[in-house]
């Protein structure tokens, strides 16, 4: 008998169907991964199992834990099961913990609420679990508050809470999406260890196919609230039945062909740049502290070249971007474009800035929701001495929209009327409209679905051949950087630790940090051969 058995589960919220006749099962000691595009209903399955569905949800079908139906159980009985028999780890480690309670209290609460043991013993147990997840109490006392821990450590506390009573079933909803690669690898190891050690069943939800391939015993692929395909990992990877599954996996490992870069001629020169952030004084009369976010960075970007910048979260990538754009002054060093400095005196140099544009990570947040597309993408015209008007302006807008694969009619729509991928195209159109010499992509595809990401990468490659783009591509996703750049910089703690030809760096990393990064990144096995 399976630990968790879901049969014909359907779910509607306010009469909108969300899940359609889902079937899946998890056995003790087994890891089942649910994957699929965003909004396909993955999280809803988890919430249905926990019986914590939003208001207005109507469920139909069977949901059995150890053979007992969970649906329509009295709330009191569900409370007894939650935390004790089923544990759950939520996506956001930053907000999943109560900020005003110590981590010890929060872990102990799981134990005490179920009256599983007296407080003294509960404390001992809490110490044990925290140690198990890598937070031994001698180094991380239980009296710490969540804000005193890093994101990865917080996620471990959430896991500790979920496993404190050794539940038979653990549900983890995107447990690592918010974490950087190295931390992600640690958390995944931890989860695997727990399954083998306690014999728990693990239902893991993620959209990261590499993670899925790496961890799961069984895979469930979802789309539009339906299970399109399910099977044992190895088998499914080799014999994909459904076109959607294939598309998903292909898009994840999508490769593009870049045109050959022209003769090296320096465009952007970054020389010994230092960026310090002032920290508040520790004591009243101390000198204020400094945090060196960018430390003596030097590199050159040639015209027509595609340069990558990788490094884990917080290593200073975005800070460097802002410095290059002349948005913030640097404390030391020189940045110049085409020989002209981006900063003269304490003022940004507008003549230089008009040669650069940027595309940000968040395709929605980087647009003013109240403006129409035409106005949004013509914003950089502000940099020109004489900005085009009337029909010339319209023509430019139409041209740009067409270039990024949208229709000129889209000019009069608002940003919320577009999908994520379309929004990112609009962002690229905005960056291209004044024909900048240099474009900076700061995590420009991280927020996108794999399939959309593949489209955008294709679009970039295409634009490279039409417009001879020069860009700096910043990402923590190594596989993307690998295909879309010619040369790469590896950054750690504000310093460039390695640079070189992209293929060279990835296949023969020199610096130990580069090696850690590459090792930590989960990779997709070669797939697709022998499709039935």
């Amino acid at each position, binding site marked *: 008998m399976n630990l968790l058995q879901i049969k014909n589960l359907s779910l509607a919220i306010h009469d909108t169907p969300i899940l359609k006749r889902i079937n899946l099962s998890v056995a003790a000691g087994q890891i089942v991964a649910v994957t699929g595009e965003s909004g396909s209903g993955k999280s809803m399955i988890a919430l249905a199992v926990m019986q914590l569905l939003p208001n207005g949800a109507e469920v139909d079908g069977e949901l059995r834990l150890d053979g007992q139906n969970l649906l329509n159980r009295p709330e009191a009985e569900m409370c007894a099961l939650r935390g004790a028999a089923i544990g*759950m780890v939520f996506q956001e480690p930053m907000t999943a913990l*109560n900020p005003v309670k*110590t981590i010890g209290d929060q872990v102990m609460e799981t134990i005490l609420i179920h009256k599983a043991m007296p407080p003294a013993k509960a404390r001992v147990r809490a110490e044990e679990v925290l140690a198990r997840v890598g937070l031994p109490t001698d180094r991380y006392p239980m009296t710490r508050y969540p804000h005193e821990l890093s994101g990865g450590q917080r996620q471990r506390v959430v896991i500790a809470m979920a496993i404190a009573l050794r539940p038979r079933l653990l549900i983890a909803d995107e447990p690592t999406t918010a974490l950087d690669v190295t931390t992600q690898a640690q958390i995944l190891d931890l989860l695997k260890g727990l399954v083998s050690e306690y014999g728990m069943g693990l239902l893991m939800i993620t959209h990261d196919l590499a993670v899925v391939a790496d961890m799961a015993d069984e895979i469930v692929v979802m789309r539009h609230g339906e299970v399109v395909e399910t099977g044992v990992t190895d088998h499914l990877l080799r014999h994909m039945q459904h076109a959607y599954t294939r598309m998903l996996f292909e898009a994840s490992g999508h490769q593009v062909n870049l045109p050959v870069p022209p003769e090296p001629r320096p465009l952007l020169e970054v020389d010994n740049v230092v960026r310090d952030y002032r920290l508040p004084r520790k004591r009243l009369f101390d000198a204020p502290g400094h945090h060196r976010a960018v430390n003596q960075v030097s590199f050159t970007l040639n015209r027509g070249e595609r340069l990558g910048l990788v490094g884990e979260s917080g290593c200073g990538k975005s800070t460097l971007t802002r410095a290059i754009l002349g948005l913030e002054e640097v404390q030391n060093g020189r940045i110049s474009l085409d020989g002209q400095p981006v900063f003269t005196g304490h003022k940004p140099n507008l003549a230089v800035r008009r040669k650069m544009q940027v595309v940000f990570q968040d395709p929605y947040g980087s647009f003013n929701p109240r403006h129409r597309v035409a106005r949004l993408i013509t914003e950089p015209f502000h940099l020109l001495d004489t900005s085009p008007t009337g029909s010339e302006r319209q023509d430019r807008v139409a041209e740009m929209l067409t270039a990024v694969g949208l229709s000129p009619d889209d000019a009069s729509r608002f940003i919320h009327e577009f999908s994520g991928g379309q929004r990112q195209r609009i962002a690229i159109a905005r960056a291209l409209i004044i024909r900048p010499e240099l474009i900076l992509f700061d995590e420009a595809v991280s927020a996108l679905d794999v399939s959309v990401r593949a489209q955008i990468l294709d679009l970039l490659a295409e634009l490279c051949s039409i417009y001879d783009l020069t860009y700096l591509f910043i990402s923590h996703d190594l596989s993307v950087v690998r295909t879309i750049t010619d040369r790469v910089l590896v950054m750690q703690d504000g310093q460039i630790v390695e640079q070189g030809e992209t293929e060279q760096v990835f296949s023969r990393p020199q610096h130990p940090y580069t090696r850690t990064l590459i090792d930590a990144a989960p990779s997709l096995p070669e797939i697709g051969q022998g499709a039935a």
Partner: protein
Amino acid sequence: MLRYALKRLLSLTLSLAVASVVIFAVIEVAPGDPASFMLGVNAQADTLAALRAELGLDVSKVERYFNWVGGMLVGDFGTSYTYRTPVSQMIADRLWVSLPLALYALTLSTLIAFPAGIYAAARRGKPGDVAVMGATQLGIAVPNFWFAMMLVLVFAINLRWFNAGGFAGWEDGVWTGLHSLTLPAIALALPQAAILARVMRSALLDILAEDFMRTARAKGLSRRQALWRHGVRNALIPVLTIIGLQFSFLLAGSIIIEQVFYLPGLGRLVFQAISARDLIVVESVVMLLVFAVIMVNFLVDLAYAAVDPRLRSRT
């Protein structure tokens, strides 16, 4: 933490200094001469001059300002022009009415608002919530002086449960004193309670939408347990701000209510002092009120830290 407190203290001192200049400037341009107010229509010029000299009104404004501020720093608020008693003494006497009244009203409003807010939040969208929220809307809309008039009409004149006003003093025991402050406290507390209940409710609703509430439920806490253990304390932060603001409002803003119930409180003191052009009293009381507001806000900030550990470690 200490550094944070010190920094706040510094900006607080600066605010007070600015406030003192503003107060002095505004009050000194008020037309009206305390001396001629005191001596009335038949006063002779020489008499007026004599009185002005006696009151210390004949020196320059700058000198008067520094005398005033300097005095306050050592706890000497000067001597009232009209009453001829030390202002500090007068303020102290009035505080024995105003402070208990403010605290009484605050306690009442908190006692009403907390359960009402929590009840409404827990029953969001249900008839109970709608009823409580409707009542709070009404509570905010009723002018408190009007409400006070109605209270007097019903409870003092018709039912005669309470005195129509006045303050019985604390000599006859705490109960006698509180009894005479009950109607004014209710009149003051009602709108405050309505506001507080709304803040409590919306703060709780915000918290209820937080991820950690879901985490708590996943641990096996029931809805109610999650609300009390994880919700209320987090919701206290915005609620504390409002309570702080309300306290300072109650201390100073009860002028009209003190008028309706003829209570010898701070508010009525300023009111009388303004009409008598007893400038020194006005200046000192206003300064004291500003000081109280700033201090209360400071304390509320410190109280945040007690509630929210994130602020505690902010160096």
